[in-house]
Structures are given as structure tokens and as C-alpha cells.
């Protein structure tokens, strides 16, 4: 049997595009709840590190209040950590960061709940707090003993560096980044009969919410159902951080027997949840006269905040990406997990990769400057080539880096842009332009092996329509439409025949988080697997009906054909049902071939790599350090794209988010460790005006050599790091202004840029 006129490869709109545009798409806060539903608010710590005592009587007495819950009210475990314990739902005795949740209150309406929460009397006995990475490094405040730091070694880096013709030392820091999903953290918990709990959660990981809520409530996982139809942006910020709202709502719902909704106001969302890890990266590099790196010693210190959360995996990915697209013959790379009194920093698109790759691009930029060579030439000299191994020993097969960089440099006129910038810089004293072309090579797979699995549940109804369930969550990336396209391609039916169901833990169990760019790769394969099982069953039924061979049946345009005979897909479904053939199938997928030994830091943790490159021009103003992007040209790999429009959206959006991280998004705190940037008034993510007037993205569509679903490539995270070209372009412009680009950090705010520039006059 085979399928014709596949839906995959086309660009139908997002499955909810119309609902988005009409406002009919429901997010947590839009779901109608029972009339007696309660609304919750939380009380948070004002101190970064302190023992505390609470008097919650004024909260209980506040108008409209129905219930209050603190640590002592938790029937099960007071723990919502994903991997290693350390993240209580409600703080007990000691708070470890300003913003830590201490209690929650449920009231008749949201304002009453929030006003009640303000009335708590909390007294603190302050303890010394570690508020900066420098302080943590000085005091050796780490999450784990130094001997257990993740360290990756190849060859004798020290010796190679000593022997190299040139040596250079440098460092770069990058700040925290707030996810700023437009829909804040939110959940609604609805008690069911027999002590069961139904939770609507804005999460990237419903299965973990199910597990944690069950633990917190002291019930079994099969007593909890978590459903997520869509989330208003996640970016990693709702992988582990969604648990607080869901579990606090569940505790209050269980306590009151009434539905409880908890939606964090933006300022609390900022204060309570973790951000992208700030990093301080240092390198010592040895290289030859062409800039070819011979050895590199690198340390990547990460500000993890008060607990582990996902920090170890994030640091691992940072270390594994500290070579970006380059070949280091000898390397010694160490990750340092600093423990500080801040919200536990967490997953954020790229998951440590961006921080590792920033260090690599910084090193290349410095080397090119040191040698007085064109930075692109130095990058090319270092590109990892076919058959070479990454520092952790994975063989890289035919990486398209040189091809992509070459095509981009040619098509977007790298040389002409460089020349134009030089001319401009000669003619202008107080404005300077910079140009950079940087590559991206990003490893695809969870580095924690067991997470690389997915399930799906497909059901065909008697009218020939299909209900599609899988474990992935829709957060805007277009996962649902892509998987619908995959399923439609198997059945040869029109797309509207497939209905994506809300992600629900009762339909597909134990799903991994929709993270690590893996959503379509894993869930798409599982759905395809389920669809193929069903197609085989239907083909067999039709073959019996027609008395022909099953493998001669063609599925196309909603019809099954065998020679001159034809029936609609709906008829076939009905016939199968009458023939007592199951029209429900569970699909499963696990990524093959991957393995990694964490102890030796050796293995092939990634099923494949996704590559791309960006060419960016920028202009800086020497009076104020203000800058803007003039152009961005991007060429990025999608494999055989399942939906080019969705992939384009991921690439453009990833670039924008990366540029925000590198240019204007700055998290600030006061001397007590509390945030002073608490919302969009003070924390500035890019607006339309920050995007370059010339912004052109092209897809590199060569089919994936790895056997992925329809030979596509993951596209969620890798494009974020294309924005490194913008940061390197700034460094280029700073150099043209006789500035000290070696001291450029991220975010490169106007102030940061001005600090690298010489005084005028």
C-alpha cells in the first residue's frame, strides 16, 4: 500500500490560526469553570535568604477568603523538583530567594485573593545570601562537589596550547533572560469524584505535572489527569516552572473541594520563576597563524540559582556546545554549577547551548582580531569536517557548515557588505557599522537518554474522521499541524479529516516534556507509527473486501483505490468497524543509536545536528552606544520540511528571541537580591522596531540523513543561536570605533556597548 498527494511539505496555517485571530482560542484563564470556582493568589518571600515565621491569620480573615495553604497543609510531599529534590512547593522555615512561594490563598475572586495575600505577616531573620556568580565562585558555593563537575577532555589541551604558535585568553558573560511567555503561569484544578483531580495546566510537560500533583496531594498518578490544549508561549519556561501554579491550585482544590484557578500576575511570575542561566565563560586558546585552533581550555560557570532544577543537564549541553561548529583537536571544558540565592534558573530555548556557543564565537572573534584576519576566514578554517569527532567523541557526518556559510556569504554578499561597512566607517566619525557571519551546529536529542521516547494514540471513527492524540504540547511552534500533516500523509486524507486533541495524560502516558526541539521528531514518529498500524489494518480490510492484495491499495485524497475500484476513507473505516477491526492504535517511538556516558563525557548523545548560519549588519552610535540591526540574512537547515511556513516562523522567532537575549533583555536586581525588572515596563523584549529592515530567511531543505520523520529536522531551538551573528557584528563595529570589543558582554545594551568605546574627545 502507499499514499499519494501527501499533506506534508505544504504550508497550511497553524491549526489554531483562525481561533487565535478571533480570540476564540482558549487559554487557562479563558476556560469556563464551575460557578463556585475559587481564585488563588500566592504569598512570596521578600528576602533572598532568611529563616522566617508566618502569621497567616490576617489572610484567613480577609474578605472573600475560603482557604489558605502553606507547607504544613500539604498532604503529600512538599517537593516539586524535576530531578533532584530541592524545590519545595511552599517554603518551610527557610526561604532561599526573594520571590520564593510561602503560601497560597483561595478566595471568591482574584482581587480578594491577591489582597488577602498582601496581608500576611511574615517576619524574617536574614542570613548571608550569595547574590552574584563571582561571590559563589569565591565562596565555592556550588550545587555539587568540585570533583563531580561535568568535565570534557580530549587530548592534552594544556600541552597543545603551550606548543601553539599563538595563545589568547578571554572571557565573556551573559545575563539571565526572562522567558516572557505572553500567557503567564496558570493552572486550574477541578476536584473529581473519588478524590481524583483534573488539572488544566499551561505546561510543556503535562506528565510531570501529573506526577508532581499526585505526590503533593498524596494520591496515585492514575488519580490525576492533566490536560493542556495550548500554551501561550513556553520557551522552556513552562517545562518545570509550571508545577508551582498547578500544584498550589491542586492543594487548595483538594482542601476546599472546589475548582481553584491560580494565575500569576506578571510581576510575581517574574519574581517566582527561574530564567535562562547567566554564564561566565573563560577560555585559553592556542592557535596557528591562520587562526586554526589547536587546543582550548574552557570553563563555563553557570548561575543556577537556589536549587538544581535542570541545571546539570543545561550545563552539560553548554559544555557539549562550547565548540559550536568548530573542531578542537584538544580540549578541556568544565562546567561549574554555582549555587546562588535566586530563583532556580531553568530551561530556556537552547538549554545551555547558546551560552556555550557564545563562548566559542567570542573566542573566534578575539582570535581573528588578534591575528588581524577576517573573522569568517578564521571560522572557515575551524569548521568541523566530515568524519571528524566532536570533543566528546561523536563522529560528525557531512556537516553542511561550509556549504551553508558559503552559499550565504555568496547570496547575501558578505564581501560587499564588509566593504560597504568599511567605507561607511571611514566617512562617519560617530557612527560605525559592523558585519558578521556566524554558524550554528546544534545537537538534536535529549542528552538524558530515556527522555527520547514518545507515544501517540490515533483513533478512527466510523465516519472516517481521525482523532489524534500524542504526548507533545502545542505552544505556538505548530506541532499539532505538523503531526496532523504527518498523519494525513499516511492516510492520504485531507487535513481537516484529522483533529488534534488536547494533550491529555489519560490518553498518552508518561510523555517527555515538549522540549529540546524534539516535539515533532519524537511525537511525529509515534503518530506516524500509530497511523501506519491503522493504515495496514484498513488496507487489509479493504483487500479482503475487494479480494485484492493489500499492497496494491493506494490511499489518496480521502479515497482508497485498487485498480478501478475505489471507496472513500470513511467507507473503509465503517467496513473495518463492521468487520470488528480495531480502529484505535497506540504508536511508540524511541530514538535509535544514541548513547552517552556522563562520567567519561564520551559518546554520541545526538541523533543528528541541525545547522545554519546568519549574516548580520549593524550600526552603533558612539555617543550613546545605541545600536540597530540593518540586515539579517539567514540560511537554516530544516531537512525535508514538514511545514515550511511553521519552520520559517521558528527561525525568524528564534532569531528575534536570541537577539533579545544578546542585546536588550536585562534582568536587574537590588542589593537585596530582589528583581528591579519586574515586568515589560522595565524588562524590554524586542519590538517590531528592533528587527532589521532587511530580514530574509531561506530554508536549507536537504533531506535529513538520519531517519527522522519524513526526513525533517528539528527547528525549535537552533535558530535562537543565529542571533550570535548580531552580537559578533556589534563587536566588529566596536573594533572599527577603536573600542575594546574584547570586553563586550551580553546583553549588549547601549550602556554595555558604550562601556567598550573610547571617550569622544
Amino acid at each position, binding site marked *: 500500500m502507499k499514499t499519494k498527494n501527501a499533506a506534508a511539505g505544504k504550508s497550511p496555517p497553524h491549526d489554531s*490560526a483562525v481561533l487565535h485571530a478571533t480570540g476564540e482560542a482558549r487559554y487557562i484563564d479563558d476556560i469556563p469553570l464551575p460557578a463556585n470556582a475559587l481564585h488563588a493568589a500566592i504569598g512570596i518571600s521578600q528576602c533572598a535568604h532568611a529563616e522566617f515565621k508566618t502569621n497567616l491569620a490576617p489572610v484567613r480573615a480577609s474578605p472573600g477568603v475560603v482557604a489558605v495553604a502553606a507547607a504544613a497543609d500539604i498532604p503529600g510531599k512538599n517537593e516539586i523538583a524535576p530531578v533532584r529534590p530541592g524545590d519545595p512547593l511552599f517554603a518551610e522555615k527557610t526561604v532561599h530567594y526573594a520571590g520564593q512561594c510561602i503560601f497560597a490563598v483561595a478566595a471568591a475572586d482574584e482581587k480578594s485573593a491577591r489582597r488577602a495575600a498582601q496581608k500576611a505577616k511574615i517576619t524574617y531573620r536574614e542570613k548571608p545570601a550569595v547574590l552574584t556568580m563571582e561571590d559563589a565562585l569565591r565562596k565555592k558555593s556550588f550545587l555539587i562537589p568540585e570533583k563531580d563537575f561535568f568535565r570534557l577532555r580530549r587530548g592534552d589541551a594544556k600541552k597543545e596550547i603551550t606548543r601553539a604558535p599563538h595563545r589568547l585568553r578571554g572571557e565573556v558573560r551573559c545575563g539571565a533572560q526572562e522567558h*516572557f511567555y505572553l500567557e503567564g503561569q496558570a493552572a486550574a484544578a477541578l476536584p473529581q469524584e473519588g478524590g481524583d483531580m483534573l488539572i488544566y495546566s499551561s505546561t510543556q510537560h503535562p506528565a510531570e505535572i501529573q506526577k508532581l500533583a499526585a505526590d503533593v496531594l498524596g494520591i496515585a498518578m492514575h488519580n490525576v489527569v492533566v490536560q493542556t490544549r495550548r500554551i501561550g508561549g*513556553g520557551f522552556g519556561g513552562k517545562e518545570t516552572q509550571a508545577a508551582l501554579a498547578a500544584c498550589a491550585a491542586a492543594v487548595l482544590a483538594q482542601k476546599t473541594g472546589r475548582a481553584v484557578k491560580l494565575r500569576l500576575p506578571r510581576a510575581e511570575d517574574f519574581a517566582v520563576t527561574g530564567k535562562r542561566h547567566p554564564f561566565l565563560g573563560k577560555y585559553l586558546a592556542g592557535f596557528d597563524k591562520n587562526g586554526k585552533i589547536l587546543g582550548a581550555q574552557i570553563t563555563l560557570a553557570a548561575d543556577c540559582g537556589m536549587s538544581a532544577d535542570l541545571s546539570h543537564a543545561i550545563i552539560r549541553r553548554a559544555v557539549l556546545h562550547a565548540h559550536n561548529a568548530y573542531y578542537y583537536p584538544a580540549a578541556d571544558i568544565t562546567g561549574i554549577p554555582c549555587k546562588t540565592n535566586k530563583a532556580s534558573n531553568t530551561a530556556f530555548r537552547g538549554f545551555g547551548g547558546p551560552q556555550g556557543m557564545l563562548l566559542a564565537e567570542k573566542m573566534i572573534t578575539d582570535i581573528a582580531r588578534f591575528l588581524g584576519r577576517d573573522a569568517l576566514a578564521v571560522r572557515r578554517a575551524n569548521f568541523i569536517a566530515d568524519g571528524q569527532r566532536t570533543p566528546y567523541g561523536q563522529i560528525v557526518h557531512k556537516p553542511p557548515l561550509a556549504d551553508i556559510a558559503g552559499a550565504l556569504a555568496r547570496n547575501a554578499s558578505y564581501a560587499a557588505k564588509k566593504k560597504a561597512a568599511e567605507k561607511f566607517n571611514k566617512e562617519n566619525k560617530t557612527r560605525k557599522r559592523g558585519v558578521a557571519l556566524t554558524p550554528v551546529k546544534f545537537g538534536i536529542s535529549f542528552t538524558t537518554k530515556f527522555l527520547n521516547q514518545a507515544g501517540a494514540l490515533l483513533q478512527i471513527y466510523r465516519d472516517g474522521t481521525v482523532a489524534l492524540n500524542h504526548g507533545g504540547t502545542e505552544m505556538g511552534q505548530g506541532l499539532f499541524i505538523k503531526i496532523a500533516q504527518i498523519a494525513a500523509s499516511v492516510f492520504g486524507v485531507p487535513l481537516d479529516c484529522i483533529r488534534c486533541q488536547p494533550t491529555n495524560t489519560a490518553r498518552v502516558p508518561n510523555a517527555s516534556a515538549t522540549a529540546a526541539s524534539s516535539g515533532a521528531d519524537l511525537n511525529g514518529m509515534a503518530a506516524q507509527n500509530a497511523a501506519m498500524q491503522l493504515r495496514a489494518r484498513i488496507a487489509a480490510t479493504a483487500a479482503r473486501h475487494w479480494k485484492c492484495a493489500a499492497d496494491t491499495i493506494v490511499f489518496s485524497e480521502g479515497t482508497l483505490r485498487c485498480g478501478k475500484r475505489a471507496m472513500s476513507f470513511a467507507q473503509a473505516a465503517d467496513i473495518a468497524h463492521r468487520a470488528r477491526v480495531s480502529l484505535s492504535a497506540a504508536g511508540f517511538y524511541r530514538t535509535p543509536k544514541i548513547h552517552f556516558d556522563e562520567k567519561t563525557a564520551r559518546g554520541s548523545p545526538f541523533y543528528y545536528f541541525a545547522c545554519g548560519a546568519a549574516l548580520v549588519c549593524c550600526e552603533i552610535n558612539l555617543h*550613546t552606544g545605541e545600536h540597530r540591526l540593518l540586515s539579517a540574512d539567514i540560511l537554516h537547515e530544516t531537512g525535508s520540511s514538514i511545514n515550511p511556513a511553521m519552520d520559517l*516562523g521558528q527561525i525568524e522567532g528564534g532569531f528575534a528571541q536570541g537577539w533579545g537575549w544578546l542585546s536588550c533583555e536585562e534582568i536587574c536586581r537590588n542589593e537585596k537580591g530582589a528583581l528591579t525588572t519586574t515586568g515589560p515596563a522595565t524588562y524590554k523584549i524586542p519590538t*517590531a522596531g528592533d528587527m532589521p*529592515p532587511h530580514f530574509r530567511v531561506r530554508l536549507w531543505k536537504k533531506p535529513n540523513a538520519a531517519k527522522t520523520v519524513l526526513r525533517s529536522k528539528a527547528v525549535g531551538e537552533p535558530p535562537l543561536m543565529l542571533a550570535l551573528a548580531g552580537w559578533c557584528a556589534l563587536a566588529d563595529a566596536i573594533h572599527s570605533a577603536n573600542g575594546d570589543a574584547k570586553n563586550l558582554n551580553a546583553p549588549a545594551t547601549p550602556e554595555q556597548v558604550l562601556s567598550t568605546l573610547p571617550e569622544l574627545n
Partner: protein
Amino acid sequence: MAVFYLNRESAPRRESAAADATVLEYLRAAGWTGTKEGCASGDCGACTAVVAELNAEGKPAFRGFNSCIAPMPFLARKWLITVEGLKQNGRLHPAQKAMVKAHGSQCGFCTPGFVMSLFAFCKSGAAQSEETMREKTTAAISGNLCRCTGYRPILAAAAALAKTGCGNDGYGIAAARKKLRELHLLSPPPSANDFSRAAATAKAPILAGGTDSMLAVTQQLKPMPRAVFIGGANELAQIKKQKDGWHIGAAANWESVGRALGSALPSFAEMLARFGSPQIRGQATIGGNIANASPVADGPPAFIVLGAELVLRRGAKSRRLPLEKFFLGYKKTALRQGEWIETVFVPKPARGAVFRIYKVSKRREDDISALLFAFCLRRSAEGKIAEAKIAAGGMAEIPKRAKFAEKALQGKPWTMQTFARAARELEKDFSPIGDMRASKEYRRRAAANLFLRFAEETARKK
């Protein structure tokens, strides 16, 4: 009591809500959940809805606003249009169609707000030519944050919509005129006298656009059961251009101030394009910007160097006060109990005056200034500096003149050296603080460099 129309409803609604009830809360409580809360501070645009209102000239006009910080009384005599009101007979509005076609939504949470900004953009004349298309579409969505798309497809949707127009969507000018006139008859706007009486006796805060005052309500949950609402008084929103300058009613919003002053003061118009967002500029008033006495308000420094005066009124009595003398200390003004700003008089710059404003912020669009400098210098016949007025925001606890620097410029040749020397005097004029917008060192250095920028931009001109 606010009397207003909602979407395609055939009868006006009458709601008597407290001043601290927001339009967004009202909509969502009624089950109209298409309009979203992203920040409750007027910064992200997810809550954007549109109103049609009669402007100061009595003409119907459409504009987007942040429903999350708009108090309910604001709806008086307006036609409120939300994302739910766009579909007609089950068919998508052209603004919605354009977004779907351009793949303008991903997670979709910000999308209703963008759709409403596109709708307002289309209704306000949109872009006329391809050359200005990018600039106009970018400006139209500068008050809406999207975290997913990178904006390119939304700009494309806006450009496509500018070409197709809104079509016969039931929200035409004639329909708006009819409805708004009806509302004005049902609930006549207060006169200046009514307002003055209320301000003197009410013992409640005066609320104009509320774009700053409402943050105390939505962020700190401070109650504000009553307010004297100046926003709906058309008489107080008049802008009269006369020989001596502009007489601007305190309730005039920034969009209309920009339209009035922009052609004569292009530097002001440039600054204004980065002042708040379209939603904020349509809502916030010149009077509110001054009375609020924020040290980082972008209006006052510009008006101070132009020599603006205020007409302050209490009951039937008025007095005039130079704007510069209005600010007494941090958030402290010369307003007496029951007194309010009625008019802002902005004199026309003298012949030969060179006027520039430089706004410096972390982000280009919709960001509060780290610092802002306004320069108004007059050149003598001999090419010297005949007069220098310079004022800054973000450098002190009030919008403040740079008197030492001005003195160093007075009578000196108009050269880079003169300005560089004057910039050194800034140490005496200001001791800025450091905060999340900028460190004090940055404020100092950038301030001095703005003198050089001014010199560079103006020195060569004869």
C-alpha cells in the same frame, strides 16, 4: 455612569463602575475572553481593544488602547470594539484574514491584541505608499509584544491589510458618527466649568488617561473607588494654534499633540514616535504627563526649553506659571488643593532657534528614557550662541534645566570645543542615580556625549 456601545450591539450599554474597575476586567468577567491580560500595565498590548470617539474637532476617530489599565469611566461616549466584534456573519474580518494568511500567529496569546492594532491602523488611514509602509506598519504594532514570530509576518499582515482595507465591515465613519452623536446626546460631556467644580470639591484624584495612575490599581491593588475623570472632556482637549504658539488643552492626548506640533518641530515628532506606544499616546494626555511629575516624563524637558507656561485653574480662578517652576521635588508640584492644569501654552521657537530632543533608552520603541535631553539654542548673526536652554529628564528628581552648562555656552562660538567644554559643566548640574534603566556613570557619560551630538548635528549649518 458610562454610556457606550459595544461591538455590533444595537443599544448602548450603561455601566456605573468604580474608577478602579478596568475595561479588561469588565470584558473578561462578562465572558468576552478574547481580549487577554499579558501584563496589566499597558506594556505588552495583549489587551488591546479599539474605541471610536469624537475627537476634539468633533470628528469620529478610531484608536487602539490598553484595556488593562483603562478605567471603566473612560468608556463614556465611546464605541468599544473588541476582537469578538470583528467577525461578521461568521466570516473573518480582513484584519483577521491577513493575520491568518501571513502566518502571523504562533502561540496566539498576543494575536487578538495585534489584530486590534491592525484594525485601528486600517481605520486610521493606514499607509499611503510603499515607501512609508515599513515605517508605518512598524509604528502601528510598536505597542504590541510578540514573543514567538519575530514580527516579520505580522508586518506583512499589516501591509497586506493596508492594501485591501477593512472593507464594508460595519465600522465605517458614518456609522461611528451616528452612534457617537447619539451617545453625546444621551450623556453630554462635562464642560471645563463642570470639571473645575468637581476637581475643587470631589476630594478624589484627577484621572486623565490614567496610563500611569492606574498602575497603582493594577499592580499594587490600591483601591481607587472614585476619581474626577478629565479624559472625556472634549472642550479640554482642544489644541489652538495661534501666532505666539500652541495653546493645548490639558486633556489633549499625545497623538493629537504630535500632529499639532510635529511639522513645526520635527525633532519633537521623532521623539514622540518612541514615546510610549500608539495605544498609550492615544490615551495619555499632555496634562497628565506634566501633573504626574515623573522625573523621566519625556514631555516636560522639551516644553521647558521652549519656554512653556501652564494655565492652572481652581474653581473659576486661573493663574499662569512657567512650566519650569511647576516641579518642586520628586513627584511634588506647585498644584494647590483643588487646582488643576487647564492649558499648556507652548511658544513657537524664536527665529534662528535650533531645537533638538535626544531620547536614550534600552529599547528603541516603547521604553521609558534612561535619559532625555532637550536643547533649544539661538544663533546670533555672528554665528555665536545667543541663547541656550537645555533641560533633561532622568538626570534628577525632577525635569531640570542644565543651568551651568547653559552658562558655559552663552555668547560662545558655535563649535565642537564650546559644547565639549559646556558638557563638562554637567557635573555641577546633575548628580544622576543608577537604576535598572542605566547606571549613573552611563547617564553622565551619555549626557555629555549628547552635547557633542548636538554640536555635530548643528555646527556645520550656517
